[in-house]
């Protein structure tokens, strides 16, 4: 059983605090993704778990064992680095077997372990090559192979896919997920890419400026963001946000003059004249006749399309609401010319309200 626990963990670089007291419990076999914009402290957190960075405050336990002062080699973890960090002077075979050689395993055991890892990752043809003779995707695979050979308690990944091209990235993403299903270890994965986070994670930990902003399943973060930061970071395209003002009869007056009822989840929580941001996803703003679900409360808007992005199964329509760019989605696309004005349906029960000053979600 390998749970990983972080209790009030901080990291100071000199007088600069990079990680501000993080609390996080990770269950056995869970795939947790730390995501957030660059510089938010994801790598630092991961490296503290790995033992590559000292812990300025708080406690980290792995499998119930306090590891604060243990060197990396005594934590029984594996790590895959962004630049792969393969040993350039060793062949793929030697790279894979390195940890077992250090542990003084016998030659036969090493051979078996290397062969198993090579089978899993399809590296059999490459075993006698040096890292310099491999493509980026192959290096990535070797780095993963090196991580699984030693059967660690926890896998740590630090942006393992960001040096690959888009197509390979998608492919390797699937392989990492398969790997997790196969070996079932606890995985802590760092990325700045919300798509990777959404597709891979059992649970997402969204970070910003050294703080955890929200923890939850991908759908939790997608459907119930706690702030405008989460709303715009998770999901593509980002959530539309329009300025508005609460009235005293449970409605919100949007910047373009449209008055909409307060979404059910926020009803009764707004003060009159409270400045808010009214948020909804492109999926919930559709040209009339294109909506998937026609029941539920709806508002009607006439909007002029400024730009279209056809994606095949759907087309993104860019429009403008009182000076704010708003994206809508058209399923069953038909050609739309910029400048055309369409009638849109906004699904009100899928809308969110955020306080304009604190940016926090207002939700019961």
């Amino acid at each position, binding site marked *: 059983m390998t749970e990983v626990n972080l209790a009030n963990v901080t990291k100071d670089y000199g007088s600069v605090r990079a990680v501000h007291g993080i609390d996080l419990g990770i269950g056995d076999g869970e795939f947790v993704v730390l995501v957030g914009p660059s510089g938010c402290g994801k790598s630092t957190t991961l490296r503290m778990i790995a033992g590559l960075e000292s812990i300025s405050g708080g406690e980290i336990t792995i499998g119930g064992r306090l590891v604060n002062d243990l060197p990396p*080699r005594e934590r029984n973890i594996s*790590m895959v680095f962004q*630049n792969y*960090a393969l*040993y*350039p*002077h060793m062949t793929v075979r030697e790279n894979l077997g390195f940890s077992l050689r250090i542990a003084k395993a016998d030659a036969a055991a090493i051979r078996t372990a290397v062969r198993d890892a090579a089978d899993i990752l399809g590296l059999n043809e490459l075993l006698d090559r040096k890292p310099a003779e491999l493509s980026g995707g192959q290096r990535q695979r070797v780095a993963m192979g090196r991580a699984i050979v*030693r059967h660690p308690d926890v896998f740590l990944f630090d942006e393992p896919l960001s040096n690959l091209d888009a197509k390979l990235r998608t492919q390797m993403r699937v392989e990492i997920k398969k790997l997790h299903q196969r070996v079932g270890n606890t995985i802590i994965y760092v990325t700045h890419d919300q798509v990777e986070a959404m597709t891979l994670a059992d649970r997402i930990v969204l970070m910003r400026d050294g703080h955890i902003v929200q923890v939850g399943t991908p759908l939790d973060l997608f459907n119930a963001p706690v702030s405008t930061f989460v709303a715009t970071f998770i999901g593509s395209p980002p959530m539309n946000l329009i300025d508005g003002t609460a009235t005293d009869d449970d409605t919100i007056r949007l910047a373009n003059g449209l008055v909409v009822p307060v979404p059910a989840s926020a009803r009764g929580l707004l003060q009159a004249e409270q400045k808010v941001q009214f948020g909804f996803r492109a999926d919930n703003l559709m040209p009339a006749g294109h909506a998937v679900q026609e029941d539920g409360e709806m508002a009607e808007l006439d909007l002029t399309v400024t730009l279209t992005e056809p994606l095949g199964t759907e087309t993104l329509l860019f429009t403008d609401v009182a000076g704010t760019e708003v994206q809508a989605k058209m399923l069953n696309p038909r050609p739309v010319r910029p400048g055309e004005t369409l009638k849109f349906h906004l699904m009100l029960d899928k809308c969110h309200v955020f306080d304009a000053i604190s940016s926090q979600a207002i939700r019961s």
Partner: protein
Amino acid sequence: MDRNRTHRNRKRLFRLLHLLAVFLTMSVICIPGLWIVLNSFRPTVEIMAKPPVWTPSFTLEHYRAMFGGAGEGGVPVFDYFRNSLIVSVTSTVIAILIGMSGGYAFARYRFRGKSGYFVGLMLFRAVPGVALSLPLFIVFARVGIIDTHFGLILAYVAMNVPFTIWLTDGFFRQIPKELHEAAEIDGCTRWQAFWKVEFPVARSGVASAAIFAFLTSWNEFALASQLTRSVGSKTMPVGLLDFTAEFTINWGGMCALAVLMIVPALILTFIVQKHLIAGLTFGGVKG
């Protein structure tokens, strides 16, 4: 058509200029060496002849004399060679061990006054060796290590360490820190991570630093000529002086000894050169 031809002509001209430049540069570098080798095989009369003799004759007389008895212009070649070898090899090994540790520390660790130390080391290199020879002579004479291998080794280590630090610092800096981190996660101690991963990767850099240190010691004259006296400690460059008398210089003999000095250095450089070229492959690290 016409444009094509002028383009081709210009390309040819550049190629010619390029070759000419290479030839001139190589001449400056090689001719003195060639002159030494050729003269070591020519009779003294021919070396001194004016106008020069263009068709050289071949003789081994200088070599024969050099290895001969003291009466016939012989010098203790083997002693000098042995001294040179002991002093150069020992000082190189020590300088590399110290210099590599220093270079690694500068490349990997942060500590107070780091850049100050670094600049200090480089400034030390700016002091000309000759200027040091008198103070060193006095100190060494007082301590009683004048005219010993130990004294010379000490001087050469001090001379080579700053440069070795500077060079190896550069090489270790090129190795991403993730390599030793990966090794540590794979079960190494910090010490093992260095010897099993970082050192092998930087091997070519260390080899080139060693070559520089060795050649510096092997060819050094200014300090050695002050700090050594007897056959027991004189190195080959100092031995060259044996061929100068009050009014004459035995050019042929001097050239012959110089050739004996050049040959091991050449061989060593040749062996290590393979490492230098094959070395720097950081392919495993960057995508």
